[in-house]
């Protein structure tokens, strides 16, 4: 085994040394860039340090068998908003790197292979063209001389862009010089969240019944539950809920002491099974107050049908103090198809006004945004205006449940609207609460692969947040740039935050020890400057979004991101940011 690996390393290094000196120095630059720079930032360093070489080799040992052609001279890169560039293309285990020939100021273009959703090859004569469609909706084109080289590159991209094994993915190799694995991973924990909310300590406790993930594989180790319910009861209640996701607290409303709980569907089945512990658990939630609401994010028909497959809903007779409301929030395949249609409509700029509007309508994406926002508004209304506690669930409780509870918290709670607060909310409600990122974000809108469990629920959340930002430009502490960054990172990232499908899986793969945390990185002063909203002014009031169709807009910044128009808007936002910062400085002096 060791010999085999050694040979491979030698093979790679041989081919590496065969290229001429000048080109090699360019490649070195490039390699240094891969490991020290991020995103669009270009760091040129002529020397590679020892550690970088080591990582580079280790990465290639495992993945180099997929790389038949590592370098191509004289390739042409065409990307939106840039003139075509001629230069050297380099494929590594996780990146596609392009360095153009401009001697005075060489430009590097770096693409994470994981970001590639689909490629199309076209051969003509002795050269080929690869069209690369990225998960961040960017479409690139590479002209590669030599048919074989082109096919090799295409094959490498196809394999390396959908690595299955988590530990082979780039976050395990990403080691920028200014961040360390020793840094704290994550922003908050259940315990920390609990300790911040002293008001609820007399009625609620932190349970570590799930410390070995045996009660619910998709929950974190610690959850907040009513004090009156002991761990044995929780175990029994978990058996009565889909995937073991028993009702847990996710939000405490300081103003009136009401809470939001979330869970999965109860397993009542065709013969209307009951579970005493589950009923007691919910009873303990409302404790004395007259009633609570259950928001089921399926239609009542869907909920009825779920009984045939062992699922179900809380019947009125067994949960007499709870009033059930059904609001159908689309998820799963329907949502993925909606995204595909929308992206297709946005990518085609040849059509006229009428076709554009009907395609937009036909994609139904904005309808999904509307339903999500209005259901979240309903949830917030129950808690804030009517003063009742609410349990929200769909079937698995890992998708639309999280979407609705997150948006409702943003509407009600000013603490969630700061930059830190929002990232902590995402960490709690999505990462720790077990949204299966790896399954949902395996592919985006361009992939020809057969759809499995892909669904842009997280993207829909970001769109809802963007609508809030659009309607309340001063109320959120973060900017559109943050939402765009998150949308990109969820699909392909250098950080470990969105890896795996649950806390348990992350634990098994040792993600927290071996990768860096995106949320921590976003809060560093340099990044914070780009992602903070310069106009932010904290308000303690709830921000009630208008859900009238007239008020909802297409998220141009994301869906039309690679067009001239979005570029103008970005520039304008930058200008506004600079102006505000300047004014602040002037006000201070």
């Amino acid at each position, binding site marked *: 085994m060791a010999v085999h690996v050694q040979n491979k390393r030698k093979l790679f290094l041989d081919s590496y040394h065969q290229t001429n000196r000048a080109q090699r120095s360019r490649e070195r630059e490039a390699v240094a860039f891969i490991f020290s720079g991020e995103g669009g930032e270009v760091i040129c360093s002529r020397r590679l340090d020892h550690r970088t070489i080591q990582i580079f080799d280790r990465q290639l040992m495992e993945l180099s068998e997929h790389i038949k052609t590592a370098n191509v001279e004289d390739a042409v890169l065409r990307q939106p908003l840039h003139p075509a560039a001629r230069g050297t293309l380099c494929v590594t285990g996780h990146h596609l790197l392009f360095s153009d020939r401009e001697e005075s100021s060489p430009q590097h273009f770096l693409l994470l292979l994981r970001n590639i959703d689909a490629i199309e090859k076209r051969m003509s004569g002795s050269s080929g063209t690869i069209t690369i469609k990225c998960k961040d909706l960017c479409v690139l084109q590479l002209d590669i001389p030599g048919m074989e080289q082109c096919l090799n590159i295409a094959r490498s991209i196809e394999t390396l862009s959908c690595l299955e094994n988590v530990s082979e993915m780039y976050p395990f190799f990403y080691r920028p010089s200014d961040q360390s694995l020793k840094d704290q991973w994550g922003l908050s924990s259940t315990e920390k969240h609990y300790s911040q909310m002293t008001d609820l300590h007399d009625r609620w406790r932190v349970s570590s019944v799930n410390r070995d993930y045996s009660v619910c594989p998709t929950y974190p180790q610690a959850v907040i539950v009513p004090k009156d319910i002991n761990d044995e009861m929780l175990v029994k209640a978990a058996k009565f809920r889909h995937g073991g996701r028993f009702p847990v607290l996710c939000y405490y409303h300081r103003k009136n002491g009401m809470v939001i709980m979330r869970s999965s569907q109860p397993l009542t089945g065709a013969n209307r099974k009951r579970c005493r512990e589950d009923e007691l658990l919910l009873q303990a939630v409302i404790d004395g107050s007259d009633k609570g609401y259950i928001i089921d994010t399926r239609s009542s028909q869907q909920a009825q049908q779920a009984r045939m497959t062992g699922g179900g809903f809380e019947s009125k007779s067994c949960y007499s103090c709870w009033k059930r409301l059904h609001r159908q929030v689309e998820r799963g395949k329907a949502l993925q198809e909606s995204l595909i249609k929308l992206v297709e409509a946005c990518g085609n700029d040849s059509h006229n*006004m009428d076709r554009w*509007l009907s395609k937009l*309508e036909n994609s*139904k994406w904005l*309808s999904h945004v509307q339903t999500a926002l209005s259901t979240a508004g309903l949830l917030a209304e129950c808690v804030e205006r009517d003063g009742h506690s609410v349990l929200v669930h769909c079937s698995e409780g890992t998708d639309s449940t999280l979407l609705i509870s997150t948006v409702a918290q943003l509407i009600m709670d000013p603490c969630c609207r700061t930059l830190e607060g929002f990232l902590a909310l995402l960490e709690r409600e999505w990462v720790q609460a077990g949204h299966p990122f790896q399954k949902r974000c395996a592919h985006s809108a361009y992939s020809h692969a057969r759809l499995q469990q892909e669904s842009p629920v997280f993207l829909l959340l970001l769109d809802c947040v963007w609508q809030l930002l659009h309607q309340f430009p001063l109320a959120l502490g973060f900017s559109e740039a943050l939402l765009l960054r998150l949308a990109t990172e969820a699909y392909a990232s250098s950080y470990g935050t969105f890896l795996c499908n649950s806390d348990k899986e992350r634990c098994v793969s040792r993600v927290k020890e071996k990768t860096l945390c995106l949320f921590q990185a976003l809060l560093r002063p340099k990044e914070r400057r780009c992602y903070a909203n310069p106009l932010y002014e904290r308000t303690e009031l709830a921000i009630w979004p208008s859900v009238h169709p007239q008020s909802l807009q297409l998220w141009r910044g994301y869906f039309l991101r690679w067009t001239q128009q979005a570029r103008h808007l970005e*520039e304008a936002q930058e200008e506004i940011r600079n102006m505000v910062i300047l004014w602040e400085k002037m006000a201070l002096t």
Partner: protein
Amino acid sequence: MEHIRLPKVEGVRLLDRVSPRRSRVGTLYLTATHSIFVENEAGVRSETWVLHSLVSSVERQAATSSGCALLIHCKNFQVLQFILPRERECHDVHLSLQRLSQPESYAELYCFSYKPNVDEEERRQEWDFLELKDDYSRMGLPNALWKLSPANKHYKVSDTYPTDLYVPESATPPVIVGSAKFRSRGRFPTLSYYSKENYAAICRSSQPLSGFSARCLEDEQMLEAILKSNPRSDFMYVVDTRPKLNAIANRAAGKGYENEDNYSNIKFQFIGIENIHVMRNSQQKMLEVCELRSPSMSDFLEGLESSGWLKHIKAVLDAGIFIAKAVAEEGVSVLVHCSDGWDRTAQVCSVASVLLDPYYRTLRGLMVLIERDWISFGHKFSHRCYHLVGDPKEVSPVIDQFLECVWQLMEQFPCAFEFNERFLITIHSHIYSCQYGNFIGNNQRERQELGFSRFLKDVDNILALCYL
């Protein structure tokens, strides 16, 4: 005052548009210029003022047990729904409002009773606030290639044009007069915008009276003169902003468009912007969609699409872009016309100016632009905006579309404009409000005959003070 049948109604409810269950109770007062709703609630003194000249329609709905509903649509798209307790009162208010909102003569307009605290001297200065000559000299005119022509003094050549017009240096009075005779309403080709960087000009006119084969030597010479005044270019564009079919239909009536064979070195281009009737219906449909009580996303988008409104906005912008590109990128002069040259032509020329020249993206610049391309060149504000009772078929949201085009550009280039959305809304509202004299009448001659421009207050000046 004689039109007010009932000066005051008590116990009136004003319904909330978004959630009709919520409503406010108060007293409705009718004055000569405004209807004022004062809420009764102790402590709050909330007043809702409705300017009568902004009211576009008053509808009386069937009486119910709760009272009689009166639905008021305003020209600034505000919709108010009052519930009056008794049918008799509702009837009287309805008739009064109908009469008050439809003045029959200019003398009834609000601008004549609007008397802010300004003395005569100040008022005169305000009217001199915008001097169009300044704009032309900003463009470098007159110069060796373009001159100020006295041809239309006393409105002899065209009664809908202003007196001060710029024409090519080589255009002699006989050429101008001859060309005017060959154009609808005598609106001969004249300068709208001039680019001093590359000598390219945007000219405007009405359609030629070419019919199927008629020619006019002077008109051909006029275009030749325009072409020659741009020494760097060997051809010019003639843009007909109508759909080709409409233009062809006009030939049967002895009007039409330029034949490329008769004019030397012109490139003729149709850009299909629909006529005022299509635009009026489209806006009506769009407003109906916006007023739907609780439409689904699909209802809204389908309705928006079938109204065609955005399609028409795009057509105007497309035309503006074509002309701006011809001037800025090719350095070629353009002659623009539609039928009469006061609707589509005004839209397209002014959009092109906004695209080409950053000056028109300033507060003062936009006002100058409206003054030049709309007010002075005879956009029929009083007809199009229904300032007086008249032919409803003459009404059309042509200026609304121009303001929306500017808004669309602001959406795409948020830092390129000195003014904000509120400025556009205020201008829009005052175009219809008749509070200031600027937009009254249909052309300069009419305003002069009415003796307006010397004693009415200038809207633009006020606006400039508010938005700087």
